[in-house]
């Protein structure tokens, strides 16, 4: 199991009723799961707990067998660098760095990911990054541009490359296609799923749109998962 | 408004007077209580350290010793102005020492003359001492310590340095015993 949630409870500071209330959720290695639900229902909050950016208040989160709650913030950050890739809906990249640099970002924080790409030094890292970008449809010339000069579709692909780089155990995607048109959306998802399969990474994607469920092994409604009170935006 | 001006004038006058007095004091060699003078002179292989302090600050009194016991007490006190310590690495050996003794400071006290009950005492005599050392490596002299300054802890010392490198001066705060020779 690459992800295991048990009796997870989380409430926003200053609020009494739990925002997140999940009894059990499991993700197998290499499995792709879509979590769908309307905006503001807590999907992003759940993701910030799973990635370890926010500490959970109650319950267990296990990523790749590691219990998050027993780790300090610093260790969770390091663990995330090693095992988890993240894709946002937008603003995925550091605009002043090139696409290649952006892909190398997570590798910059994790030696393990460098090793899994067989990239011992900086040069090799960049070559591997460029390779991945090419496979996602970005040529070398484009990859050398600062990220702010890329189109939104291209930026999302760079984001996917960064998340995939180093073959992490788990990739978390927070509505990565919501701002794309349907054609680009399908293309991106196809590429993402293909590479996840290839790398052996599990994928947990959150979206308000259930139409993309075809790309996934299973689709879970967030409202079914989250037993606690939640607030719509 | 008038009061302000007057205060300022007074302050200015006072300050001016203070500067004038301190200048005059320096010029004529008048001593001030609480302030001692020292000099460190290095020439060739010899190091000369001299020290001068008001009687009051060393003995605590300017009165001549009343009896033999008092004279002994005074002498002991004067002995506390002990030998300075130059940097050991310079290899200095004391070759000459002069010091004010009780007799020199209070010449009248030697004469037990009851008729001279109210004659002039040299109230403002100073305790003086001078030590001369011969040093093997005077260039290695980096400091001279006057350990007795720790005993006379209320005394600030104006130090004059006449060294091969040049002339200099510094002021030792009360209790500070170390004179650095740049």
């Amino acid at each position: 199991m690459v992800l295991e949630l048990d009796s997870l409870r989380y409430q926003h500071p200053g609020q009494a009723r739990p925002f997140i209330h999940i009894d059990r959720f499991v993700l197998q290695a290499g499995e792709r799961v879509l979590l769908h639900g309307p905006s503001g229902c807590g999907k992003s909050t759940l993701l910030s707990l799973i990635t370890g950016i926010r500490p959970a208040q109650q319950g267990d989160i296990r990523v790749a067998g590691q219990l998050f709650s027993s780790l300090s913030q610093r260790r969770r950050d390091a663990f995330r660098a090693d095992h988890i890739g993240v894709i946002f809906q937008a603003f995925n990249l550091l605009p002043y760095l090139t696409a290649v640099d952006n892909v190398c970002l997570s590798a910059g924080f994790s030696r393990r990911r460098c090793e899994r790409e067989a990239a011992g030094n900086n040069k090799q890292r960049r070559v591997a990054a460029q390779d991945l970008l090419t496979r996602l449809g970005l040529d070398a010339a484009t990859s050398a541009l600062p990220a702010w000069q890329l189109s939104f579709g291209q930026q999302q692909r760079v984001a996917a490359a960064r998340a995939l780089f180093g073959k992490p155990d788990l990739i978390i995607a927070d509505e990565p296609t919501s701002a794309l048109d349907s054609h680009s959306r399908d293309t991106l998802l196809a590429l993402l799923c293909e590479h996840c399969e290839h790398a052996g990474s599990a994928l947990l994607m959150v979206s308000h749109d259930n139409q993309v469920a075809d790309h996934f092994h299973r689709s879970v409604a967030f409202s079914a998962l989250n037993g606690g009170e939640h607030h719509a935006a | 408004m008038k009061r302000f001006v007057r205060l300022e004038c007074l302050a200015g006058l006072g300050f001016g007077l203070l500067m004038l007095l301190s200048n005059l004091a320096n010029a004529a060699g008048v001593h001030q209580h609480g302030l001692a003078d020292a000099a460190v002179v290095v020439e060739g292989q010899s190091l000369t350290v001299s020290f001068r302090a008001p009687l009051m600050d060393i003995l605590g009194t300017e009165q001549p010793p009343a009896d033999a016991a008092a004279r002994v007490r005074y002498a002991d006190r004067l002995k506390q102005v002990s030998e300075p310590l130059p940097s050991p690495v310079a290899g200095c050996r004391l070759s000459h020492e002069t010091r004010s003794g009780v007799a020199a400071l209070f010449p009248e006290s030697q004469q037990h003359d009851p008729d001279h009950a109210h004659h002039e005492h040299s109230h403002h005599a100073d305790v003086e001492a001078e030590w001369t050392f011969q040093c093997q490596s005077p260039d290695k002299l980096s400091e001279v310590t006057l350990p007795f300054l720790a005993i006379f802890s209320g005394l600030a010392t104006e130090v004059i340095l006449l060294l091969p490198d040049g002339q200099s001066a510094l002021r030792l705060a009360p209790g500070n015993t170390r004179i650095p020779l740049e």
Partner: protein
Amino acid sequence: MLPRIVLASLHTRKTSATLIVVAIALSLVMIVGIERLRHQVRANFASTVSGIDLIVSARGGPMNILLYSVFRLSDPTAGIRWDTVEHLADHPDVKWWIPIALGDSHRGFPVVATNDSYLAHYRYGRDQALSLADGQWFAGADQVVLGSAVAQRLGYQLGDDMVLAHGASGPAIIEHDNHPFTVVGVLSATGTPVDQSVHVSLAGMAAIHSGGQFRSGLPPRPGQRADTPDSVNAVMLGLERRTAVLSLQRELSRYKAEPLSAIIPGVQLQRLWRMTAVGENALRATSMAVLLVALLVLVSTILAALEGRRHELAVLRAAGAGRLAVYGVIVGESLLVTVIGSLLGLTLLFVAQWALAPLALAEWSLRLPDTFLSVRELPTLAAILLAGSLAGLIPAEKAFRNSLADGLTPRN
């Protein structure tokens, strides 16, 4: 990875970064510049008196004697009689003696009356003797030797005539056009008040004061040498032994024939610095306040920019950046700005030193430093860099807290 992020990130905020860099540069110019100037002025003053053991003058304040007789500043001192000078000359402890008479000026430059001893025995800096760049020392009563700055500023050359006025500085009240002096020598630059002085013989000054009558040609008064004035302002002494300095000083203060003061110039100079220390400290405090302002601007600028950088930080955090990495990005920026500012400041100072050096030497006989950075200044530089780094700590912590609060995705 981190340096690249810091550099690229800073580049996007070029304008505000440049302004802060300039602010830090200016504060560094102040801090280091003031220290250097202070050091240089002290060195210059010390160099001027380094070869003199004692200065003897009429009884008066030692500071005044020092400032007037050596630096031609402050109030004139009373004169001492020539027979006292002879007593000093004949004293067994005295190796050499230089008489100095002041009081006149030429177009703002002080006239110094002295004798051959001045050229032969005056030493400055590291035991450096005076040397003539051109011509020779005065021999006759109507001859003048100029300091280097005087010759340069007023454009005099050998053979030129000069008119010397009675009285000091400003336009002459009485001029003696019918008895001009002739320039026979120009001294090399020394970086001391010698450069600003017009040197004449004692007979020459006597001539100025006696209405322009040169004594040469007249028989000397009985018991008096040919070129002796009635009085001089000061006598500079070089002694046989250093150990005689204090004893001679004391002896002269008790001299019965005339009230005298003998000062030890190096000692007096130190006491002068003790008096100016208050002013110097005020200057130092001011320059540090300027740095503090620059750093506060740095902190507030970074803080203000944090709002717009929330997504940037979210990306970094998602990629696995912990607290230390976030600190690295933010503090790295403030440190980089401080480093660039410091280098710019040092460069500005270096250029200013180089550009102003000739002017400083000519106007104030001040030799400006010519270093970019000296070992002595390293702790100051390190402290400034440290302060710059610390300035980044507050925004860094805030940035990290922000990212924790934002969770995965910042919501505007």
